[in-house]
């Protein structure tokens, strides 16, 4: 799949270079604490929509998430954790993106529609047993690239919608971008749900392909 010059680009490079592995594993505690403190904050008003104008589509109005999913003890504690670790999550993401850009890693990791769409569809057909053989796979298959690119976009939505509800007046343009304060707050929670869903699928798939876990720890062989 890769052109000859692209092949030489990965020569001597590990499948998972150190900075990618570092950023990946830092995400584990960071996302767990962000999710837990976020749910603790949400528990102070476990509803979506403004007072007197709750959203009709949200099925769990007034139902707080279970205690074991929460972190930070109480509202003020959770806010301190959330606003403290948020910076580290943003920093981790920025370092990761700069590294991917500078080292050309995005080329083998990110979803490029022209290159990966067909492969993603064929891969999905293979998973659904509509096709007997998997399409040719280089570094990642099209579906993997789609998933990993989507989750970066999702992280961006989480950061921006979070900032929108953190300072809805000062960062009014972010509030507008997400359709208002209560809408931004709903998007922030839905984003958390999608991140949770991604993590669940991710865990199942790497359990089925344990080599991916080894590579994310050791870095894998040099190419």
């Amino acid at each position, binding site marked *: 799949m890769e052109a000859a010059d692209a092949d030489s680009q990965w020569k001597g490079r590990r499948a998972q270079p150190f900075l990618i592995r570092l950023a990946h594993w830092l995400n584990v505690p960071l996302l767990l604490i962000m999710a837990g403190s976020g749910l603790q904050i949400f528990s102070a008003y476990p509803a979506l929509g403004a007072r007197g104008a709750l959203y009709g589509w949200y099925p769990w109005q007034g139902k707080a998430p279970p205690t074991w999913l929460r972190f930070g003890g109480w509202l003020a*504690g959770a*806010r*301190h954790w959330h606003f403290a670790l948020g910076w580290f999550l943003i920093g981790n993401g920025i370092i990761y993106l700069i590294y991917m850009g500078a080292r050309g890693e995005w080329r083998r990791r990110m979803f490029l529609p022209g290159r990966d769409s067909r492969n993603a569809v064929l891969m999905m057909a293979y998973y659904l047993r509509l096709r007997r053989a998997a399409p040719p796979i280089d570094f990642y298959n099209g579906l993997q690239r789609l998933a990993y690119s989507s989750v970066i976009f999702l992280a961006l939505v989480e950061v921006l919608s979070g900032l929108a509800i953190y300072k809805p007046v000062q960062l009014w343009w972010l509030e507008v971008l997400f359709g208002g304060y209560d809408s931004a707050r709903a998007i922030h929670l839905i984003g958390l749900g999608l991140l949770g869903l991604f993590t669940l699928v991710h865990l199942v798939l790497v359990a089925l392909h344990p080599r991916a876990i080894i590579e994310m720890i050791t870095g894998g062989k040099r190419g």
Partner: protein
Amino acid sequence: MASEMTRRRLLVAVAAGSALAACERMAVGSGFLESLGRWNARVDRFLFGPARLAGELPPAATTPGNAFPSYFISDDMPFPPAGWTLKVGGLVARPTTFSLDQLQQMTRIDMRVRHHCVEGWSAVASWHGVRLREIAEAVGADPHAGYVEFRSFDSGYWSSWDRESALHKQTLLAYGMDGENLMPDHGAPVRVYSAVKLGYKMVKYLTEVNFLAEPSGGYWEDQGYEWFGGV
């Protein structure tokens, strides 16, 4: 210029100090969270644009009266003492006591903005009252008073603010809500209402406004909530 810079640095340091004091009382307090709390207090202050106005909302956005939450810390609803007045003092040229009538004779400002509670809910009402900015001019507030403290007859509930937020165009001493006189559950006779702070900063059942050189914490702030509390 130089003295202005020094003052700014001092203000930031004092604000950070008060955030630190708040964190020390937190059950989950730790050196890490304290440092980040100080950093976030600076971010909060940095993001605040003294001239930036919150968007005013149309009448249709108004929250139905009984759906706009209200609370007080006293066991029973606080009612104003007979002969209620508002004392404005501290670092001012002319400490003054205002009656409700006197406040109502000053320039009346009406605004309908979104209310942001630290718990995450929002609600909308229109508020009317007098800008604290006008009161500050009337009493001759000292330019070196970088902080403003609000005190109440609700079991001593209080909060202290940075001067810039207190003198923001959308910070009122409100005596009316949704076109009516302020009701006891929303802080009658006079409460602080602002478009640029979280709800817990807006002291109800107001008795005193003091211009200060140092912040004096607050009821929730001293229990661990952010001191700046901007939105």
